[in-house]
């Protein structure tokens, strides 16, 4: 699609909807946002962590994303007004896309974001602006999980959606929460290439002859691919999430082993540089932003790391110096909210310069692509009754993203405690999950956005105070360890029924203190507490799926209002630029 066709499509859509929403101001906004000056001779588009959000949604960026040590004050650990101050001049629309500020009012004004039919229109337009064969669409993974239809089709609805979208190359993380055979079937059904240099078969599994890409190296998937763009050879290496069997159940993929594999990557880059004569080397990464920044400082020879996992809408890349020169590191947000555009300029067979833009995908500025919309409608049709059920109305803004309890998390832990008759509830600090604005219905669709996965079973069990403290300490270390290679990229475990004090700057085992029950009683290591939770990684829990439990809680109410978040009292991080409007207080 070229620009003229795009504008025609806009006009047609305006005519069809009859609302004139695409005319006038919206048209100008669309042009201001999506008209990019031509640059260079090849274009890479990068999306990541869409979490199966096929339809437009709201997504509130965090007001708490604390950075420590080297990450102190370094993007993405700068939130809200702090970020806007560093960005300089941005439009109110872009400010809304990049921050949580005045979220409800701004969301009403600018509308929903993402949606694959709208994304498709934008992708086609951006690819249409460059020569045939001069562009690639890269997907950083976390595409096959996050919605009811993705779960019920075992990721296949998303494979078909990415085929329609035209994804050329992808890597994965939540993709690996299906079973090995299902993953291979999906990869086979995927029209592009699935790449991962850091996914290996275990030696035992190799010996047993499980399917792998390379029996000698043990790579389960092709580690990299070379594509010729406008006559320039571009290498794209895949970096799957390194800690999948730790952060997610190993039992689904017992034959595979991961890790950052820095040495193997460095060697691979060297081999590619020597044997393939690429004009540019790209790492399509699911490491997370801080891990990618450290990696960039240690592994030379990579021109770009296009990153995901930590869901950071990085408005500009960070350039990292290393022994081989410079590596540009990006992160492209989540939930279909952003599409990144990397334009490359070559000279003398080498990369000369680049331009990077992180485009927010505002659904109202982009007419839905009819073929993609038809696919989405068809996928959802058999499940409409379940998905559209209005469980309750949100009386206040419900969101998840942030280092500590979001309001939707608070709703989940409240529901777990009440429905499962538990003193305490724990809920994982995932970074996916969409936002519900005040007055909107909380449908099953929205509840599944927050909970849908292949290990949703709940549990209720007795835990000692020491065990609980150990859970908090372990997760806090996965989030706040000074060395990014020891971080897993999730947020802090969400808690209900007790409060605690947290010093993110302390060492492992010394961060958590003052654990106090909701009734004011001090918790001690020797005490015993009845705890409800879900998403157990070790073995399957016996209870109902968490969405059934929360749905029961919501159906019993007409509306839900969250006024209080059980966030920890923080120590030693006052004034941190990654912290704003914090409701948990400081010690």
């Amino acid at each position, binding site marked *: 699609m070229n620009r003229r066709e795009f504008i025609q499509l806009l006009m047609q859509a305006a005519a069809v909807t009859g609302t004139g929403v695409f005319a006038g101001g919206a048209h100008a906004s669309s042009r201001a946002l999506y008209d990019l000056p031509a640059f260079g001779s090849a274009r890479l588009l990068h999306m990541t962590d869409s979490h199966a959000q096929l339809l437009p949604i709201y997504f509130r960026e965090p007001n708490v994303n604390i950075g420590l040590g080297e990450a102190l004050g370094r993007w993405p650990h700068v939130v809200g007004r702090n970020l806007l101050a560093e960005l300089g001049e941005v439009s109110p629309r872009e400010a809304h896309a990049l921050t949580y500020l005045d979220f409800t009012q701004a969301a009403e004004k600018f509308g929903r974001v993402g949606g694959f039919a709208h994304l498709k229109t934008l992708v086609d337009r951006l690819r249409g602006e460059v020569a045939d064969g001069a562009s690639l669409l890269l997907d950083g993974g976390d595409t096959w999980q996050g919605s009811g239809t993705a779960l019920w089709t075992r990721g296949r609805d998303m494979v078909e959606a990415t085929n329609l979208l035209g994804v050329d190359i992808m890597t994965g*993380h939540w993709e690996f929460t299906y079973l090995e055979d299902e993953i291979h079937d999906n990869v086979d059904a995927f029209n592009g290439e699935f790449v991962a240099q850091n996914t290996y078969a275990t*030696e035992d599994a*190799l*010996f047993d*002859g499980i399917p792998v890409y390379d*029996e*000698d190296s*043990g790579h389960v998937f092709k580690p990299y691919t070379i594509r010729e763009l406008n006559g320039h050879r571009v290498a794209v290496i895949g970096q799957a*999430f*390194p*800690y*999948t*069997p*730790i*952060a*997610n*159940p*190993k039992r689904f993929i017992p034959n595979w*082993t*991961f*890790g*950052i594999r820095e*040495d193997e990557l460095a060697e691979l880059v060297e081999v590619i540089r020597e044997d393939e004569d690429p004009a540019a080397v790209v790492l399509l990464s699911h490491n*997370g932003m801080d891990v990618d920044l450290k990696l960039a400082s240690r592994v030379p020879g990579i021109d770009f790391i296009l990153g995901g*996992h*930590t*869901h950071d809408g990085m408005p500009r890349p960070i350039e990292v110096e290393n022994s081989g020169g410079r590596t540009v590191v990006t992160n492209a947000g989540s939930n279909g909210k952003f599409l990144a555009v990397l334009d490359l300029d070559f000279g003398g067979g080498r990369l000369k310069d680049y331009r990077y833009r992180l485009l927010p995908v505002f659904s109202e500025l982009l007419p839905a692509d009819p073929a993609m919309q038809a696919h989405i409608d068809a996928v959802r049709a058999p499940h409409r009754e379940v998905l559209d059920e209005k469980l309750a109305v949100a009386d206040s803004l419900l969101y998840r993203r942030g280092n500590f309890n979001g309001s939707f998390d608070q709703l989940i832990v409240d529901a777990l405690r009440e429905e499962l008759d538990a003193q305490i509830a724990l809920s*994982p*600090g*995932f*970074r*996916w999950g969409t936002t519900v604005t005040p007055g909107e219905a909380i449908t099953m669709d929205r509840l599944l956005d927050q909970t849908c996965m292949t290990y949703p079973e709940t549990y209720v069990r007795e835990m000692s105070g020491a065990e609980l403290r*150990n*859970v908090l300490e*372990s*997760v806090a*270390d*996965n989030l706040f*360890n000074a060395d990014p*290679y*020891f971080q*897993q*990229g*999730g*947020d802090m*475990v969400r808690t209900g029924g007790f409060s605690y004090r947290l010093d993110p700057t302390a060492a*492992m085992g010394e961060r958590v203190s003052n654990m106090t029950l909701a009734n004011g009683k001090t918790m001690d290591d020797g005490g015993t507490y009845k705890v409800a939770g879900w*998403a*157990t*990684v*070790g073995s399957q829990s016996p209870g109902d799926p968490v969405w059934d439990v929360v749905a029961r809680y919501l159906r019993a109410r007409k509306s839900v209002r969250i006024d209080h978040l059980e966030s920890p009292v923080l120590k030693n991080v006052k004034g941190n630029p990654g912290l704003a409007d914090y409701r948990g207080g400081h010690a």
Partner: protein
Amino acid sequence: MTGLLTRRRFAQAMVALAAIGSTPLRALARNKEAFEAKMPDEALKALFGDKPMEATDAFEFKVPEIAEDGSIVPVTISTDMPGVKSISLLVDANPNPLSARFNFMPGAVTEFKTRIKMGESSDVRAVIETDDKLYVSTKNVKVTLGGCGG
């Protein structure tokens, strides 16, 4: 599959070599004491007495940053350092820190893969013994509760 079988056979051969290496009884007693030691320094002392030790990164010592399973943490060691007599692995935080010791016949290829058991996050040390010196490389391996990945 050839490459793999070769690696596997190679590893088997290494173990066999280590096993048939004629070991004096005194050395066996030393090993027992070292493997039963509760502190890493005790284990090292039992094995090597007061032999001088030097920290180095000059050989390949691969462990995962975070263990996927603490009960089977993969370790790879490879070096072309001349005159290597043995390589030992110590997990500082384990109740018995000395996890493994590999003896090498003169001229053997000093390379192996093994798995060690770790109860908790810890420094892991690889100690190369030569005639006159010990070379040690230390890496931290995290053993963590799972879950909560973004």
